[in-house]
């Protein structure tokens, strides 16, 4: 039956993509149930999770998946777990019932079987994917990740016509209770003849409070910490897949604006230094610090029954310098020179290709587009005359953004 669905889907897809720039996006997730996760205190918990290769323990959260709005997504779930069946629920993506991942209403994927999920990426935003088989256990065990839908052009924009930003960071909050990770809980009975499995669940007393799967000193790692330059616009994607509520407190100097939730814009946007995120919710927050800063985003984990704060974690924040003309350039395969420029502007490449340029002014207006560019191995002179000001230059290849560079024109 799965194969039949696949063939039908490709026939429909091959007809529908003609004339569109959107793409077919394939993702593979391998469901595992013998993962190991080293916690901040050195203890190791058994986990379930989604990996993208058989040679690794499944990361927690699972790999972040991407598509652009309008892309046709094929998600291949390969169950190599020797235990319970698994599914992918595409949380918030509003897929049809067959692809919704609730076992008794769609299908479940058994050991050494593949299941394919198909959908067209909807509104740009932040979504979850997670297993929906005995979801209380399987989500706690680690079977979750984030699915990000970018705008149709893949740009650093919240949605088509939305806010432009310089960088984005994803923070996924969750917790772990070591008792739930014992074999007696994780190896729960699963009777595939039942439409709804009835499974004993322990009381929930989490002792690990996680941001991107990390806690305490682990949050000091560069991939977690928020680093920004002054006036740099950062889009924070914040998501709660735990069983406690999160109260997020931003340093006032970050000038946080809450602009979206659950894949939809918030109109009007809400200026607030405090944000509550309950289980299953996702929020988009735009920050633009104007001063140097060393501080932290405070993440309080709040018991849904008692309303008591059970734990607080801190995401380090460092703001220094002016938005990085040099810093950004050195991270990129492309470099703009001279910069600042009072005349012609060149783009040097390490050989990485680009075939289009978009230039935005300081307030985000698109002021110049150049397409069908054929450039040499390492240098391209832009054929544009710009007035004095501050510009963002996007380099694209096959309609996807390869780099976003800053230019000062004198």
């Amino acid at each position, binding site marked *: 039956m799965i194969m039949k669905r696949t063939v039908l889907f490709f026939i429909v897809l091959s007809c529908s993509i003609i004339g569109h720039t959107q793409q077919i996006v394939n993702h593979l997730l391998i469901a595992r149930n013998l993962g190991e996760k080293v916690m901040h205190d050195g203890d190791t918990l058994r986990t379930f999770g989604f990996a993208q290769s058989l040679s690794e323990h499944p990361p927690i959260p699972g790999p972040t998946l991407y598509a652009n709005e309008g892309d046709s997504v094929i998600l291949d779930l390969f169950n190599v777990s020797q235990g319970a069946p698994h599914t992918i*629920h595409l*949380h*918030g993506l*509003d*897929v*049809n*019932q067959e692809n*919704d991942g*609730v076992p008794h*209403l769609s299908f479940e994927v058994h050991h050494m079987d593949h299941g394919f999920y198909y959908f067209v990426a909807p509104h740009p935003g932040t979504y979850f994917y997670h297993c929906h088989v*005995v*979801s*209380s*256990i399987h*989500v*706690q065990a680690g079977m979750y990740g984030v699915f990000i839908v970018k705008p149709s052009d893949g740009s650093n924009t919240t949605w088509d016509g939305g806010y432009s930003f310089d960088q984005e960071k994803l923070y996924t909050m969750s917790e772990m209770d070591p008792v739930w990770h014992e074999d007696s809980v994780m190896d729960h009975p699963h009777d595939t003849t039942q439409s*709804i*499995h*009835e*499974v*004993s*669940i*322990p*009381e*929930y007393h989490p002792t690990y409070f996680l941001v991107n799967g990390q806690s305490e000193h682990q949050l000091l790692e560069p991939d977690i910490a928020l680093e920004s330059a002054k006036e740099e616009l950062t889009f924070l994607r914040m998501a709660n897949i735990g*069983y*406690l*509520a999160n109260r997020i407190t931003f340093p006032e100097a970050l000038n946080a604006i809450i602009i979206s*939730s*659950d*894949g*939809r814009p*918030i*109109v009007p946007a*809400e200026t607030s230094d405090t944000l*509550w995120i*309950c*289980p*299953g*919710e996702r929020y988009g927050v735009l920050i633009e610090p104007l001063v140097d800063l060393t501080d932290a985003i405070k993440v309080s984990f709040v018991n*849904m*029954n*008692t*309303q008591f704060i059970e734990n607080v974690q801190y995401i380090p924040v460092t703001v220094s310098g002016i938005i990085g003309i040099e810093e950004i350039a050195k991270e990129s395969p492309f470099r703009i020179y001279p910069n600042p420029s009072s005349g012609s502007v060149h783009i040097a490449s390490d050989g990485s290709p680009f075939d289009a340029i978009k230039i935005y002014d300081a307030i985000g207006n698109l002021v110049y587009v150049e397409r069908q560019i054929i450039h040499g191995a390492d240098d391209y002179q832009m054929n544009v005359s710009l007035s004095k000001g501050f510009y963002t230059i996007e380099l694209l290849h096959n309609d996807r953004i390869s780099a976003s560079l800053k230019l000062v024109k004198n």
Partner: protein
Amino acid sequence: MKCIAISLVFFAISFNGLSTQITDTIYINSGVIQSFNGSNIPFKSYNNTAVFEKSNAILSYSVTDTVTLTVINNDSVAHQLRCYGLGVSAGAIAPGNQVDLSISSDSPGTFIYYDQEDYPNNKILGLAGMIVFRNSSASSFYWNLKEIDTLWVDEIINNGLTSTEYNPKFFLINGNHNPNINNDPMARVIGNVGDTILIHVANTGSSTHSIHFHGYHLELLQSSEHSNHQGRIKDTFPINPMQVLTLRMVPHQPGEYPVHDHNLVAVTGANIYPNGMFLTMLIDP
């Protein structure tokens, strides 16, 4: 239909301009809930009849209605009835006594009525329901969210509440848990693609819930706690204790889709998955 039926509206007695006079009666009853693990849990409810039902009556009226609500106390101790957000309250009603309340609302919305007597103990024992004023012919469904911590119930019934940590084991919608919520026609959303469907949600429990919809985003029409959130379109709606929400859904696709608390402890009951706050919506083409 039993306890979940819309409160019996007896007659429209007279018209005063566009206002319709309605009389209705509600009974304060005491009984027990038999849980699925076999235990009996003492419980109190506002019911449509003098017979105890575990689900509090859902009172649903038009915004043009002026309701005279007779409250009859069938219990052995005094109780009250206060309409939170409507400025209506009855003082203590002695056992066997009754009072009449006049209730109306200029604007549509979802509200909570509850027992202010010995607050919050009687509310914890069950005495809290939902009152809705409507101005739409759209299909309406009603979810009264409530939890039960049997230790708290035991303490309140016997020696008074001393525990500080609330740790409920039962998570109910209109007094039911999964899969029985789907048998409640007031709770189970059934409709067609393109219908306008209103879902009235009241949290009369003591926990915060986070209600996640599969298949659809809904528009928040009313939030008693965050009026500035009105108009937001979401798939997950937190609701704090004593908060109400009114949600509007226009299904764009057919199918059977779950709705559940995404605090996934609350989809369990007596520590059994999935016997908690979980139901499905059935949308036909």
